[in-house]
């Protein structure tokens, strides 16, 4: 009776619709995927003898290679973005002044165009006789090999697509560093590098960590860049999962791959969040 009364207090009561929505729209599909990962290969019935064959198959075949590619490319994307975005974030916060809003807008605008359209745009840019090579040829008579359909271009595409997801949390992080604190460090004899290392970086860390996680999780799930720009030269794990669920009609294998991916990414996120406890960084603990 008590418990029932608790549920019907206004707070929990008003949360019910959202809870139901999350349960049906998020938890249920996820649980289904996890369950499918345990049923025999190439079957569609959930209610049969569960086993670990799908996982065994993954570890005994070369299916780990797409994992490595996905994680590796995602890690590379994050690192490249960190190097590109920190100076921009710093500039937006401290240097550009009245132009900061305009520059931020420039970085935001591409988000209003569909990711696929933007990626196909790059094809037109890099393709033989396209914008880049065509111009070089007609203007200078120079005809280099096209870099389209290479792993490098896949990486470039990922860096390009996920840039805002690194830039904006990072800008927020950098803007949380009080100017007086930086001045104080400088005034106490710190060099520019020491100010960066001792004050800028640790105090901007919450934004940086969020940017890292956001881009990493998104980049691990990237598929279009490798397919379109990379010309399937490498197969990311997402593409394997897609194939398993579609052409191959092997839902249990696809489910097992998905579960593994979630485990890897989930563990990583938890470890990072534990290592960089946001509250501690912000001095709230």
């Amino acid at each position, binding site marked *: 009776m008590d418990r029932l009364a608790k549920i019907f207090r206004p707070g929990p009561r008003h949360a019910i619709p959202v809870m139901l929505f999350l349960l049906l729209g998020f938890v249920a599909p996820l649980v289904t995927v996890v369950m499918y990962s345990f049923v025999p290969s190439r079957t569609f019935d959930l209610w049969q003898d569960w086993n670990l064959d799908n996982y065994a198959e993954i570890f005994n075949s070369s299916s780990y290679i797409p994992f490595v590619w996905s994680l590796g490319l995602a890690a590379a994307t994050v690192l490249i973005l960190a190097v590109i975005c920190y100076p921009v974030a710093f500039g937006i916060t401290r240097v550009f002044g009245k132009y900061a809003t305009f520059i931020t807008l420039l970085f935001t605008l591409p988000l209003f165009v569909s990711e696929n359209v933007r990626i196909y745009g790059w094809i037109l840019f890099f393709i033989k006789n396209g914008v880049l090579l065509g111009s070089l040829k007609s203007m200078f008579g120079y005809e280099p090999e096209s870099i389209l359909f290479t792993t490098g271009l896949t990486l470039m595409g990922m860096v390009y697509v996920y840039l805002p997801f690194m830039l904006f949390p990072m800008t927020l992080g950098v803007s949380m560093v*009080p100017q007086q*604190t930086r*001045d*104080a460090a*400088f*005034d*106490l004899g*710190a060099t520019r590098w*020491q100010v960066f290392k001792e004050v800028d970086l640790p105090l901007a860390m919450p934004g940086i960590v969020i940017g890292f996680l956001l881009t990493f999780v998104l980049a691990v799930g990237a598929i279009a860049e490798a397919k379109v720009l990379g010309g399937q030269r490498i197969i990311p794990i997402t593409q394997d999962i897609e194939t398993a669920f579609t052409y191959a009609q092997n839902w249990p294998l696809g489910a097992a791959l998905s579960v593994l991916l979630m485990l890897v990414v989930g563990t990583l996120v938890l470890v990072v969040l534990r290592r960089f406890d946001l509250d501690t960084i912000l*001095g709230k603990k």
Partner: protein
Amino acid sequence: MTGVPILQLRSLTKTFGSLAAVDKIDLDFDEGEFFTIVGPSGSGKTTLLRMLTGMETPTSGEILLRGKRINDLPANKRPTCMVFQSLALFPHRSVGQNIEFSLKMKGVDPATRKARALELMSQLRLPESYYSKNVTKCSGGERQRVALARALAYEPDILFFDEPLSAIDYKLRKTLEKELKDIHRETGKTFIYITHSLEEAMVMSDRIGVMRGGKLIQVGSPQEIYSAPHTKFVSEFIGDVNIIGVTADGTAQVKAKEFGASLKTPAVPEGFGAGYLVVRPESLRFLSKADEAQNCLEGRLYNEYVLGSRVQYQVRVGDHVFIVEKLRQQAFGGHRDDKVLIGWDADDSILVTD
């Protein structure tokens, strides 16, 4: 307090666009003195301080430290240190790490660093257990001391203060003002302090410089600033004061604009046309007969305010409001709306211009 100048400003100027935030300031700071620059917001005191610390480059003029020009020396190369308005402590570091920061930057080994930090903590009455306490967990007064300890650890020749007490409640501020003066005495370093509160400046300083509109309008000891302000602006700055608009009437006296009375003054300078007569509330007296003071006015007792050790009275002469202040023991026994005589001697008043 005359000594060797440690820091000299020569026609120091900083302009932002067409605005001169600091306008041709000439000033010598003496070794070991506690100098306070006072001014309202927008008077240029913060810009001046930023130039002295090296965070802002002067547009023209010179800053000489012990005779050497340091205009272009960046803040991290100057033997000076500042306590910021926000204190600017490092929130991700402990009390000890904050204090040791400058030593760490210099590459001093951890043991020496810790010893020095603990020494400073005991000097500033911070308990030793605070060494590993997070600064964000400290109270306002403790953070103040950490900031001061951090600055002292740098062993600066000059310590600058940018209104560090402005955000602290009254009672604690009063305590810290005195503590800061004690620390100044113990360390013997040159302290240069800026504030908008002349009251704060009075308590702590050896000398005070008053700034207005980018210019230094008066420099002197607290007593001089209080008793001999050069302008209406300076006299008003100390809080309650009676200011009477007056015009010269060709004699040794001046005429009050508002209520027409002729008032005796110390001396009317040559060419004085119009200005203000300044009388401190404690210089005003209640009289029983008109001839008890050189200037006497009849007014109406409007209100009284008990200020603890002192009592303040508001007396209206025509539309002009006078403030009279007495020690509590010598309180005036009048009642509201009583007709009263108030007066003062010519020597207790100062004639100033705008």
